[in-house]
């Protein structure tokens, strides 16, 4: 049985909801990368998400790494994957392949949500070291909630018709 700690450092492979390896803009990981490699002003155009995640996993598995710091690094890794997921959604929409990918989308999103639940739980339970990152537990929670919203919208049950009629009246959709 996989323990919570094992899940914390596990590698995940999206089930088919991939095209080319997503990349992370430097602006999103500069702080983390500089801190990790102990260098400043190093120019790295972009690094593949998988490489960043491997780097993070390698560090958090080291003995003696404080748990709040490990949680911060894992959270950064998860956030990078969330961004990559959003970019991939749009790419598939632009290419007209999104509808055909919805089964994979559901699986990938479910996994991303599960990872996020673990990240938020771990941060609340054992702390989040804000030193190398600029986000808070509330930020993580809000990002997680946005994924839940995406899941409900794309894969969840539809509103009853009566509810939709009520809502359309609230917005008075006849108004331009």
């Amino acid at each position, binding site marked *: 049985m996989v323990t919570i700690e094992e899940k914390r450092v596990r590698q995940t492979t999206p089930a088919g909801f991939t095209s080319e390896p997503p990349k992370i803009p430097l602006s999103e990981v500069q702080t983390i990368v500089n801190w990790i490699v102990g260098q400043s002003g190093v120019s790295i155009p972009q690094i593949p998400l998988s490489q960043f995640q491997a780097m993070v996993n390698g560090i958090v598995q080291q003995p003696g790494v404080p748990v709040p710091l490990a949680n911060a690094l894992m959270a950064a890794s998860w956030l990078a994957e969330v961004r990559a997921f959003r970019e991939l959604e749009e790419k598939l929409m*632009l290419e007209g392949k999104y509808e055909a990918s919805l089964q994979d989308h559901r699986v990938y999103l479910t996994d991303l949500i599960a990872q996020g639940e673990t990240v938020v739980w771990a941060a609340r339970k054992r702390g989040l070291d804000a030193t190398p990152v600029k*986000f*808070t537990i509330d*930020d993580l929670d809000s990002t997680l909630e946005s994924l839940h919203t995406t899941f409900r919208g794309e894969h969840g049950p*539809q509103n009853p018709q009566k*509810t939709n009629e009520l809502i359309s009246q*609230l917005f008075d*959709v006849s108004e331009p």
Partner: protein
Amino acid sequence: MSRNREIEAILEAWWRLDYCAPSESADSKRALDQLLDISVAKSQGQCTREQILTYLWPRYREYRLEKRKKEQVEIAQAALKKS
């Protein structure tokens, strides 16, 4: 598909939540929730934030696509000006 200003504001706030920097997520969610709560209050509690988002989901998908296409056009135009 025509949209009114309230819907447009919600879609824009929703988009900001999905695409903001991680450190701005909590603030972006609060902004979106405030807009949704206006509609929830108008419904006198007959609908929830989640139901409103579910109702608006198809429009949001379209909104995201439009925004991305517009951004691509702007990038292409900027590149043409430089060359």
